[in-house]
């Protein structure tokens, strides 16, 4: 809620100084910059470029759109840049839940609630993966092995104090086991490290390990979701994403874990600009190009905007804060 109040407050003070007609509608008048809080080639980068492609194809924005990568400091750079572009609706910031987890684990000069929320465009799923020739056939096998030899199974993930490590902590708590978390630079590397047998498991997103599964290097044990993913095309042999059982059904009681793909505007952006971008992203999410991206990357393409988005963020933020606090990751 804090975010809407902040946005409303800013809007009211701005509206008071503007003629009524001007405040009604906003349109970009200069080239728009999509600020990506990951390096080129990262998940957020592919996300932003998919939106860019959909917008360009269907002429949803009257000016040109450029994508810039500001992924330094695990994405902190992008938010610093966004915060500095005060009230400029020509800068749109693309991220994940890092928008609210980063300020918890590193000292940042910006606050999440100051950014103006636009949309959550999709949710990326998480799966428990093992090497193809691994002795573990189910999540229960994995848990049993971890119980037998506590603290020896190596779980790889991208970055420290990020989604993969959070999920690892949740798995440890739910199954009452201890794993050895090893951070790498990105999901692609984590996938090949598993294929090479340098770790025992990882929690990659489906798209990060799609190539490895098809090529018979790795296979998924279970998905961290309430219900199995929708039945789609076959991926590897006669198996598709829909055939992967839920982790809860295998006795690993982490019922739901996913990563929202978020879009924000710089702090102080007027509400008419916010409304404009909400509309653009809604129309972009209906294009075949976007649908194709979502299905290719096996994400959940649920669009969340407005109050629902703020509620969702606040709920997630509170949950995450609790986990981080217990793990001792919060910065003072």
């Amino acid at each position, binding site marked *: 809620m804090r975010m809407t109040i902040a946005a409303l407050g800013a809007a009211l003070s701005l509206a008071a100084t503007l003629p009524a007609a001007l405040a009604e509608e906003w349109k970009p008048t200069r080239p728009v910059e999509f600020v990506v809080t990951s*390096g*080129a*080639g*990262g998940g957020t*980068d*592919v996300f932003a*470029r*998919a939106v*860019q*492609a959909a917008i*360009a194809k269907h002429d949803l924005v009257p000016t040109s759109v450029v*994508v*810039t*990568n*500001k*992924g*330094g*400091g*695990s994405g*902190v*750079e992008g938010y*610093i840049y966004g915060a500095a572009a005060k009230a400029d609706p020509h800068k749109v910031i693309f991220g994940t839940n890092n928008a609210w987890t980063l300020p918890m*684990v*590193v*000292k940042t*000069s910006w606050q999440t609630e100051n950014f103006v929320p636009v949309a959550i465009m999709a949710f990326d799923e998480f799966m428990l993966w093992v090497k193809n020739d691994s002795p573990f056939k189910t999540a229960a096998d994995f848990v049993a092995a971890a119980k037998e030899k506590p603290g020896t199974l*190596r779980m790889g993930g991208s*970055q*420290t*104090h*990020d989604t993969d490590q959070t999920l690892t902590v949740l798995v440890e708590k739910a199954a009452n086991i201890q794993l*050895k*978390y*090893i*951070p*790498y*630079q990105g999901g*692609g*590397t984590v*996938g*090949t*490290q598993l*294929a*090479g*047998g*340098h770790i025992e498991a990882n929690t990659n997103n489906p*798209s990060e390990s*799609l*190539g*490895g599964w*098809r*090529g*018979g*290097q790795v296979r998924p044990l279970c998905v961290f979701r309430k219900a199995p993913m929708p039945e789609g095309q076959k991926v590897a042999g006669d198996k598709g994403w829909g055939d992967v059982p839920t982790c809860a059904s295998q006795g690993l009681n982490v019922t739901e874990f996913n990563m929202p793909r978020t879009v924000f505007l710089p702090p102080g952006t007027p509400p008419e600009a916010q409304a404009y971008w909400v509309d653009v992203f809604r129309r972009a999410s209906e294009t075949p190009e976007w649908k*194709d991206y979502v299905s*290719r*990357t096996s994400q959940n393409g649920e669009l969340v905007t407005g109050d629902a988005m703020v509620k969702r963020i606040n709920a997630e933020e509170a949950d995450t804060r609790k986990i981080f606090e217990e793990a001792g*990751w919060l910065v003072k």
Partner: protein
Amino acid sequence: MLSNIDSLMHGFGVALSGYHIMLMMGGVLLGILVGVLPGLGAPNGVTLLLPLTFGMDPVSAIILLTSLYWGALFGGSTTSILFNIPGEPSSVATTFDGYPMARQGRATEALTCAFLSAGFGALVGVIVITLLSTAVANFALRFGPPEYFAVYLLAFASFIAFGGGTPLKTIISLCLGFGLGMVGIDTVSGNMRLTFDFDQLVRGISFLVVVIGLFGLGELLLTIEEGPEFKGASGRIDPREMFRTMGRMPRYWLAMLRGSAVGVWMGITPGGPTAASFMSYGIARRVSRNRANFGKGEPEGVIAPETADHSAGTAAMLPMLSLGIPGSATAAVMLGGLMIWGLNPGPMLFIEQHDFVWGMIASMYLGNVVGVVLVLATVPLFAAMLSISFSIIGPIIVTVCMVGAYTVASSPFDLWIALVFGAVGYAMKKLDYPLAPLILAMVIGDKAEDAFRQSMLSSNGSLSIFWSNWLVGAITTLAILFLLWPLTMLLRRPAQTTDPDAATHAP
């Protein structure tokens, strides 16, 4: 292997069309431009072109992007040689002998040498890819954190141990590089390091900006001090010199083969082109017959890093396609492109996307031939730039350096960093501190650190993990032998080490 050659022929069928040749020429020319401008670099160039490729079919798109990459690799050497400003991180090592050659009026020879050996390196890289695609991909999978660390250690050891310079000054320069590379967020602990709560330091200090300052601006300051003798150095341009150099190239076959071998090795094991060029230069300086002349304008000192750079850049395409491991920053951007074009990198890519993979490999042969021809055509043009008076070219260099420093991350703060390192570079040269160890430490220091700490997490702090299998054990042992090399030399031939040659003039 035979089936691979069949596939390659099929690939040529896909890649050889008027449209694709046009894309190659356009890509290479753009790439040369991007490579010549310091700071802009291949990763930025590919990122800028990426939106253009959304409407293309994947084969045409990858041909355009890889051609740009080849062009940028060629172009990067040009400014290294002419002005001591590396256009690309991987052409830093080319300055060590390329620039002295240019100052002696041998710019044409140095440029020709660089481009021909680069083309040769690329050719070796792509032949390895063609013949060994699957075997090499499986080999790359064997690399976990201990193996990565061992590879970086080997790169360090071969460059540092084989390099000259006072040991103490080398160590200071090395440590400065490690410190600079550490700024920003730490992968393993997740904490900010050395940022002092400065927002601008969160993303770390860009290696490219430091290079622009240390080499470009630092060199300029020295030139101003020494008086603008810049112009007389090579007033005469003789196009025939280019052909004479071509005729001399076969003489350097050993240096070229050695450089290519180092490059292919570093491209497949994810050491990357920059580390490859340093390592190759370091080894050449120790084993070459002309080693005494290194650092003073020795053609082999240009050939060694250039062949390694290009063969590594080319060979790194293989782990990218077959495993999704980006071997370089540019490969990382191309990986993003693959996803957008609807392809998934992985072992199945070779089977399911036959046209794409082999079309691309075939285009690597063609693109590099096109690249060598085009870039050689620019030699007289670039060499002529040296005959312009310093009072004109000096300010242009400053402008290009500053524009380059800004382009790296579109951050005004980087301009200050470049200026500061310009002064640092000047001071270091005056005091005879070597710059190369600093650069090498910055490029692979933090990666080596990550790999070391990941290994330690994995082994619960036991160093025995670096001898846990034959592969990592062999690389680690070799690296340690390299490190001990100067020591054994000291014991065997005490007279040789007092020879000031090559030591004081080492870069």
